[in-house]
């Protein structure tokens, strides 16, 4: 087997979900969920969310929020990855303090994936469904933030997704585009994702 030169910074899963206000291009929620099976800060779960405060009455978890059961891992993914992603830049993730939460996730990658984060005061549920495609994406030597990376990940765009906060559904819609065999969705699963920092 060929070895790729560099340092493995993160390996695990990283589904994402962006919801739009119906009939507009206005983002009402942008969510990046990280399940680490290996990182320099250990294993665990982190949920990085920006939710439009006017979209739902949940003051503890709207705006910019980081929930985690491993604050060091949450800080790592916020600083090195999500804080540089489109829809997450300039949302204040660099300074947001992770809040402790308990996580449960379950799924069958063919059909759906479900993550629940419980802070003790608020419960956030994310559901991805109707998985449209499974593709291994391998990107080599690209720039994100101050580093250059290799990335391997299995991307699975989804037709539907939802966010509930304290059992109240956040109103928003997923955007799916199809061009020939190329399907993109603002809601996607990302399994077996590995970020390798180039030496």
């Amino acid at each position, binding site marked *: *087997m*060929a*070895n*790729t030169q*560099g340092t*493995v910074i993160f*390996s*695990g*899963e990283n589904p994402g979900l962006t919801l739009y206000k119906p009939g507009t291009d206005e983002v009402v929620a942008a969510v990046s969920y990280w399940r680490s*099976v*290996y990182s*320099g800060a*250990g*294993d665990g779960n982190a949920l990085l969310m920006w939710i439009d405060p006017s979209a739902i009455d949940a003051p503890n978890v709207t705006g910019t929020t980081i929930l985690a059961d491993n604050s060091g891992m949450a800080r790592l993914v916020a600083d090195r990855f999500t804080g540089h992603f489109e829809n997450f830049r300039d949302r204040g993730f660099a300074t947001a303090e992770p809040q402790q939460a308990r996580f449960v996730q379950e*799924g*069958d*990658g*063919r059909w759906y994936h479900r993550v629940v984060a419980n802070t003790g005061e608020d419960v956030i549920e994310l559901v991805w469904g109707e998985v449209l*495609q*499974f*593709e*291994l*994406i*391998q*990107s*080599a*030597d*690209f*720039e*994100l933030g101050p580093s*250059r990376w*290799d990335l*391997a990940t*299995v991307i*699975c765009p989804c037709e539907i997704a939802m966010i509930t906060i304290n059992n109240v559904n956040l109103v928003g819609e997923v955007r799916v585009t199809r061009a020939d065999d190329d399907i993109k969705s603002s809601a996607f699963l990302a*399994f*077996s*994702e*590995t970020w*390798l920092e180039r030496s």
Partner: protein
Amino acid sequence: MAGVSMFEIKSGVLFTGENPGITLYRPDSDAVVAKVSYWRCVYSEFGAGNVMLIWVDPDEPVLDGMPHRMLLTDNLPLAYFAWDTFTRYFPEFEGYDLSDVKPRNARFSAESDARWFMRVTANTGDAMFEAAWWDILGYTLRTRNAWILGGRLMDLTTVIGPCASGAFRINSRPVAGEVRADRLKSPPSSSAFLALSETWTERAGSMRE
């Protein structure tokens, strides 16, 4: 993402998840006393789930009358898939055939901090099987392209973490074997290894055996 210099998309995803393994040797000999291949699947055409493939030296006293070859799973089709499509063709399982073994249901539990350890248990209701890995010697992202398994042309991407230590226990009693690791190789290698974020894809036009 700015500055992408290489970008590849592979369809035909067969499996994605984790696939750590352990081979234990009798101390001071090259005799194998146990082989374990654990599959944690997050996506396959047969769904998600867990599979533990086990071969133990039939003379090992910890078996205590149990079969020395076992397939434990919480998803029966996935167990057949993991053995028939992948493990039976792995070099480390050559001569350790499990093709006639009927999978048994088990409840799985896994916990880890992959900086330090991973532990997986499979509980069948009448016995408990535990595989453990620790003393991790580092991680490398590895790829192997155009690997022919059972006449199918596959590509593999995985993060390998060789471990200096590992164990396999049945009902809390360890199989009397040791891991063989080479710390001086670059990267290090070991008969006990974690394999995280592992994805197998099949190339279009590949023929099934």
